């Protein structure tokens, strides 16, 4: 228990390896070196990890300073268990290629869906017109 019981603080997490998920969907892994009251993060030896299916690729990025509001979540990585993963690491080029293929496939399926809906005279639900939550 830390000395700020009842609250959450990142102080405990300093100098530990973390996985940070950003709002734009990127996954960063690095050592959390510094924080501030807005939960802005300084990540060291950062690696951007791209996951496609069962494969992943790491892109070394160096030092990151992340603005706190862009963090979705972050969690500590247990170094002992870090390598204990069913996922397969591949090279950067390969994973980028995989990502591109995945994006392409998604776009195509989306196009087909829109087409099908149009044929049936249905409107495509767009996020900005939804007023339901």
């Amino acid at each position, binding site marked *: 228990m830390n000395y700020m*019981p009842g*609250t959450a603080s990142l102080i405990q997490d300093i100098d530990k390896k973390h996985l940070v998920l950003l709002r734009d969907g990127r996954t960063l892994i*690095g050592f959390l070196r510094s924080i501030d009251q807005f939960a802005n993060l300084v990540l060291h030896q950062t690696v951007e990890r791209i996951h496609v299916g069962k494969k992943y690729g790491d892109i070394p990025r160096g030092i990151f300073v992340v603005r706190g509001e862009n963090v979705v979540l972050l969690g500590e990585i247990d170094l002992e268990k870090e390598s204990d993963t069913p996922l397969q690491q591949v090279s950067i080029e390969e994973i980028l290629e995989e990502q591109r293929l995945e994006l392409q496939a998604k776009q195509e399926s989306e196009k087909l869906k829109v087409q099908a809906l149009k044929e049936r005279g249905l409107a495509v639900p767009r996020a900005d017109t939804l007023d339901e939550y």
Partner: protein
Amino acid sequence: MGAAPARLFQLRGRRGVSSQEGLGAPLLRVSSSPGCLLRWCPCCFCLLAPQILEDYLLVEDVPLLEEMAEEDEELDLYNEMTFGLDRDSTEEDAVKTPVPLERSPDLAETEEEPQADEGQPPPEEQGEPQGEGGMEPDAEQVGSEEEEEQLGAEEEHEDEPNDLGDPAVMRAVQSKPTLESQDSAVLDSRIGSVWAEFGKEDMLAMEPMVWGSCPSSIPPHPVLEDKAILQVLETPPPAANVALDFLSSPVQRGYAGSPRLNRPDFRGTSPKSFSQRFLRQSTGYAPPTRFRPLSPTVGTPPRPLAMHFGPMSPSLDPSPFFSPSASSQFNFSMPSHLTQLHPQHQRILTQRQQQGGTVQSVSPKKLWSPKADPYAGLMTCKEKDWVVKVEMIQLQSETMDDDYYYQTYYHRLERKQAEEELMGGRNKQEPPKLVTPFIQKVETYNSVVRIAGSLGQVAVSTCYSPRRAIDAVHHALVEEAAGSHRLRALHRIERLFLQLLEVEEMQRKVSLAPEEQEQKTQEAGRIYQALKIRACSSEEEAEDEFLQVLCVRKGKKLTARLLPHLASEQAEKILLTITHHLPFLMKKDALDESLPLLYSPLNEVVGRMTFSRLIQVLQEITRPLPESDEFPLAMALKNQFGITLLYSLLSRGEGLLSSETPLEPHGRDFETWTDTVFLVARELSQVPKASLVEPLFLPSNLLSLFCRYLDKQTVHHLEAKMECSPLPSEAAMPC
């Protein structure tokens, strides 16, 4: 680098301390590349007096260094005044300045030893021979460096260019090359050389616990694989309650040596100047107030021999440093307007501080990592303290708005303790004293500056409106102006919810004076009015505002939370409306399934109802619907909320009947009641068991109710259907 302490980024943003009056940002002191001391004024970010130092300082530069040290002292003083922080820093500085001169003779001595060692093959304990090519030349380099050190100046000097240096990285004030300033690959290759400079005897000369508690001080190197060294290092730290300062070099980092003042012998035995320096810094440190080193781990060492070490996560130093009631060893002098946390929090902190002395090694051995994280400790303790301080300020508030979880946590803790006291009274619990939080309110500032005689305003940027360009005021949208029904309903819900929160806040206050009670009920009544509950026919159901509100999950929550605060008349009206429109609501709720939210408060309402009112409500359920032949009853049986509500109503009726209180029925109440019971029984027996939904709660007196009116067989049948627990003694039932 000079003798000035390697104080780096001490960035104090204004924002974080906005609630503090008169706090300015301290001067930034950034030491970037080795040999350059830059300072920025934080407000305008102009460089102040840049000082470029030669890589190799000569004797003549000593006064310059001392000047710098003085300036640093001033800065520290400024920092201290600003933040009321650590006197230790000034102690450090005071300690540091006489150090350089004092140390050089020490250096001369101690440098001899490692110097002598290097030429020899490493002692057998060191295992692998220092096979790396980098060793020999480095050894020579050390020799040449030594002379310069004797001149009394300490700085880092290297033959390799230091432009690789990462300016943001910490720098140790030392004579040895700062490894962080190099590329990590270079770092790794050099770590060995630095390590080799430690004679074995030097290591052993130090108290083992010094090194033993220094997990991060071991660089990754083949030397590490030497068992003896590892053994020495793996001695667990004897005293966990130590303070750490991560200001120093990677090799020395994570030095968990006790910061006690009774370590004068280290000055002599420490082979390295920077380690001495580090020690002195540590001794200057105030014991109870610091963080323990947090996980000096290396995540992905570039070397193939990646040893995985679990993160070292010792619990933080159990010393509270924001407790105003701290003991005298407490070095923090917090500004007066920064006091008062929740009393329970303070208590915990004081307790911790007292216990701090008794706590020994906390970090279990398995978590301790013998591998050095050369970059650990970038964030100094002072900076951590500062962040925590800001966070604690944010916790101080009188309302629940600021930090709900913090407040709730402590309320619950208090409640639990109060209960324990009542029950056992075993622990000497301090009665929670109502310490009124004393927060300095931010004085109202003029966010709009109008210069007399001018047109318009000056754009003033403040912490609340950093980019305020125009005097734009957000006007709340008028409801009618909003678009669809649904949007309107959502707007209303939000508005009413805010009002509800205020009502609940009023409720939460400990002692409610009668006029406050009155005010509270008034407020609640206002919300009730705003809900616009009215009778409407089935055709208008989609348009009815209250029902629209109820169709939204949050609207149900709003109603559920509002019910306890309403007068019984109003609450019953709501119940009536809900039951009247039950089929509609159930249909709308099919996707969301949030009706059960309403059950609990409605149950409360039912529990207080009179018999006549109950009959009224039951009539709503049993009336035939115009469109279909189905009774709402039948539909209710298929809906979890519906069936639970039904059972609740019946249970209440049964309770009233069997309680022998005068019921004051009106007219046909009893007949209606019996009719209803029969109807329910019939429906229950008719509906297939598969479509009968399990209720949220099954009242126990339902069977006895049926027993009152129905024959035994039917009761058995119903019992099986409803899956009630069988009655205790059926023979006694008047069936």
